[in-house]
């Protein structure tokens, strides 16, 4: 095989994977930006959304709805909505009471929630892998020399929907009143509160947005790969967090950029070096970034105020 074709193929795969990381990373980065907490359960919300995707698909086919665009649209919308409610409820129940607690408390609570989500799904849905039928077939082939690389339709769907989602979110954050309040709360929560912003409501909104973006990733990945189980959220969660750190935690464009860089790097590594160690590579990258550039690619180095 032509090695250029291999590289291009891996870049396409990396872009797909990276868009997904970016979508999930948004949840980490926004929550971290606004309350300085790593929402450890975020990866598990992604997992829940994968189950919800399968459930919606099964329900829709049960009711005989089989027009593909309608099915995809309803599944995406429904999954985003329900996962968003999950995000809201979790923040309300497990994190908000800890606003003024010790520094470790929210993090430990989040780990607890991560356990609860995984076990809740395992106990109710079983521990076997679940799957959905393939819905999108076919691919675009691009010739390179006397070889080719391909982009499947579901990859195109992932990339397009991710970009749309990110674009929409960027618009909301940059241009709308809600976005302005989010940014203000991120900069100085106390002052924003004094100026009449309902900071608790803004924080809830951020959790809902993060969860919904994770759900978009869940739907897209499930459509593409088809199978998942109750622990699917763990590794991808850490990877997405890596993407958030890589891009500069707290920065929205950073999350997207970090996701794509990580996805590409990981794909190239597994295509050209070794597949077994691709997770080791990703975690190694995380540790390296944290050590040498903790503020990430787009983050601003902050001086801790004394």
């Amino acid at each position: 095989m032509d090695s250029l074709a291999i590289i291009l193929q891996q870049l396409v795969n990396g872009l797909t994977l990276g868009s997904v990381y970016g979508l999930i990373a948004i949840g980490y980065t926004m929550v971290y930006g606004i309350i300085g907490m790593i929402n450890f359960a975020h990866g598990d919300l992604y997992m829940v959304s994968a189950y919800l995707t399968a459930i919606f698909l099964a329900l829709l086919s049960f009711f005989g709805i089989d027009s593909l665009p309608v099915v995809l649209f309803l599944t995406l919308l429904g999954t985003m909505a329900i996962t968003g409610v999950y995000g809201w409820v979790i923040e309300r129940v497990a994190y908000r009471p800890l606003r003024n607690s010790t520094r470790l408390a929210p993090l430990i609570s989040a780990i607890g929630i991560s356990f609860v989500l995984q076990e809740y799904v395992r106990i109710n849905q079983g521990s076997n892998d679940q799957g959905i039928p393939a819905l999108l077939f076919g691919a675009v082939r691009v010739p390179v020399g006397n070889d080719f690389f391909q982009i499947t339709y579901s990859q195109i769907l992932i990339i397009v929907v991710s970009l749309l989602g990110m674009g929409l979110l960027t618009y909301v954050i940059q241009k709308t009143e809600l976005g302005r309040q989010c940014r203000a709360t991120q900069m100085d929560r106390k002052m924003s509160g004094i100026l009449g912003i309902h900071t608790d409501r803004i924080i809830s909104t951020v959790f809902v947005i993060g969860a919904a973006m994770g759900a978009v990733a869940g739907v897209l990945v499930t459509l593409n790969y088809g199978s998942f189980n109750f622990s699917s959220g763990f590794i991808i969660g850490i990877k997405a967090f890596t993407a958030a750190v890589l891009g500069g935690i707290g920065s929205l464009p950073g999350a997207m950029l970090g996701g794509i860089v990580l996805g590409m790097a990981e794909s190239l590594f597994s295509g050209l070096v070794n597949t077994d160690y691709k997770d080791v590579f990703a975690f190694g990258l995380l540790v390296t970034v944290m050590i040498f550039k903790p503020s990430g690619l787009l983050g601003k180095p902050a001086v801790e105020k004394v």
Partner: protein
Amino acid sequence: MNIKHSFLDAFVAAILATIVFGPIMGIVLDGYSFNLDVPRVAIIVGIIFVGRFVFQLTISTQGGRDFFQQFEKGRAGSIEVTDPGIKTVLAKAIPFIMLAAAILPFFIGKYWITILILAYIYILLGLGLNIVVGLAGLLDLGFVAFYAIGAYGLALGSEYLGIGFWIALPMSAILAASFGAILGFPVLRMHGDYLAIVTLGFGEIIRLVLNNWSAFTHGPNGASAPPATLFNLEFKRTAAEGYTPFHEFFNIDYNSTHRYIFIYLLVLIAVAFALRLKHRLVKMPIGRAWEALRENEIACRSLGMNHVTIKLSAFMMGAAIAGVAGVFFAAKDGFVNPASFSFIESALILAIVVLGGLGSTVGVVIAALLVILIPEVMREFSEYRYLVFGLLMVIMMIIRPRGLITIKRDRKFSTKGEGAVVETKQGEGAA
């Protein structure tokens, strides 16, 4: 009492519960289709509706508010300054408890001995992590990596270097601590929460390497580990060259339980050491420095304390204890494989520390015993145990983030006896 408001509130909660529990609990995937299970959704939604309604009604009354206010106080945590050297009933009982634990294995079967060994190993792990999380306030989510390093230290050490249990014990501790140092040194100077994720990544790296580097670690098949020996006496029916079997030396019948009793006693001694160590550490400058860093890092730095090396010492101490625990684990089973060192293990140890109450020694011991023994006693429970641990972790953080037990701090007097004066003054005032 405001019934209408409470009802509305409970109604909203019920709707949210329906959205959250409805799909996952009510629609169980079965291949590409599904089975409905409406009753269990109805039950849980009902519970939430009634629970929320009753809760809202209660807090709308004065008495109810007072009741819940107690928890608010508990959340702040209580600290008491007491005279040093006062022994609690528990402290007095410790020698007896230890003695009872030491003779216990002679009365129970092999099965229970192995379970207790495991429980004690978890006590060790809990005590080790408690130094890191409870005392120094560093969230280490990759603690299991050091446990793995200890266990594989024995297994691979004996395979490649020919070392036995007794050499492996200190060597694994040092090896684990060195890994801790290499990882911790760059990471510990960063913002606290990052440590959690970096250690998590490190834990996964170690597990993946153990899994994939088959040429060295034998991959998922695992590696065998030598059992512990007593002054060159082996606990086997027939010993290897140059060794004598324990039963021949003492001229008793061979009994495979002996081996487990021996390890049981060794782990018990290790636990006793670890308890003693923890007891002393909090009274030493280093333990004080850990607590100080947990409380206020800025102040520490302004006082000439190198926060990186102080945190590192806690991190390494915890790692070393985990390494020792790993050696015991490998020696107990005579075999290790990567599956024993997944993230869930780290989380379990963290659960022990959190449920025991961060920083509390007694709490950790009790929590470790419960966490390991309850699933054994109640088989049905083991299906739900991680769910319950997760829920308890959240609840603990909400109602008692500093642990269940009142923290005691020692009163200290000057050589001239200052410091005691206040006590008498207060006493007089009360009289």
